[in-house]
């Protein structure tokens, strides 16, 4: 782990991975959308509205996945104080916030025709809204201090405390009576969804993951270049 957690090595490897991640994203989302819109059948209960699932479910999963990654990176930053883990957590926050917003917005557009309401204060929806506020709170806190190290530390603690919300979101549909449907892919006994719908869904999930990798690399590189710029400017002022 520590072998790769070196900024110079990160700059070298990430430059190689970035174009692959970007092009796989384009290819996977193109194939996934084609299968989702033209090949997958309409749902027997929900008709054509079920096609919203192919962006709603991947973005909701990514919202949780990115937050988990952010919490792990924050823990590593607090324990080992490695600069790359702070950078990774900080770079992840806006990406996770975008996925959470997409999950909420597409869910609202799916809820109106199926439930008859754009929004209900149901356990799943409310905990997802809390996740969005956690992301936004993290982003505000990390830049709220003059000393970037203090901001990073405060934000890392927020990310760790907020992690309690992740299992709450995942199990909200089992713990409470909710309008939101329960899991049909990740559950005991295997997925209860037909391959014609499962295949495009999983392809979209992989495509969203490579998208996250590509944007994460760009944002982490931005942070490293900015840090280098700042130290160069400080040296220039001293001369």
């Amino acid at each position, binding site marked *: 782990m520590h072998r790769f957690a070196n900024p110079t090595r990160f700059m070298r490897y990430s430059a190689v991975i970035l174009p692959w991640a970007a092009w796989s994203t384009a290819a996977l989302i193109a194939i996934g959308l084609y299968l989702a819109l033209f090949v997958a059948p309409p749902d027997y209960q929900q*008709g054509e509205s079920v096609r919203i699932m192919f962006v709603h479910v991947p973005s909701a999963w990514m919202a949780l996945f990115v937050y988990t990654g952010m919490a792990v990176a924050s823990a590593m930053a607090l324990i080992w104080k490695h600069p790359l883990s702070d950078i990774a957590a900080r770079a992840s926050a806006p990406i996770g916030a975008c996925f959470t917003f997409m999950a909420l917005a597409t869910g609202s557009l799916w809820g109106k025709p199926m439930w008859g309401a754009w929004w209900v204060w149901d356990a799943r929806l409310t905990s997802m809204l809390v996740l969005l506020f956690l992301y936004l709170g993290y982003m505000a806190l990390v830049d709220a201090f003059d000393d970037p190290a203090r901001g990073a530390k405060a934000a890392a603690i927020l990310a760790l405390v907020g992690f309690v919300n992740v299992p709450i979101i995942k199990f909200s549909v089992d713990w409470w009576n909710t309008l939101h449907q329960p899991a049909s892919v990740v559950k005991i006994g295997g997925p209860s969804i037909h391959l014609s719908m499962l295949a495009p869904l999983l392809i979209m999930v992989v495509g969203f993951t490579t998208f996250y990798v590509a944007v994460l690399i760009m944002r982490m590189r931005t942070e490293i270049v900015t840090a280098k710029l700042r130290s160069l400017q400080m040296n220039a002022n001293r001369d």
Partner: protein
Amino acid sequence: MNEFFSMGGYAAFVWPALGLSALVMAALYIQSLWTLRAREAELEALQGEKTDETQA
């Protein structure tokens, strides 16, 4: 073709959901790429100045 775009009567929900997602992802991608390019250009300019000074 019209039947495809009408999405069985759910066009007003399916297309905005897809469009909004595409918009958010494209905006995030482009913003990240442009910021990276701008910072890299700034760094290159600053390092160029430095080497000029040392050569002079």
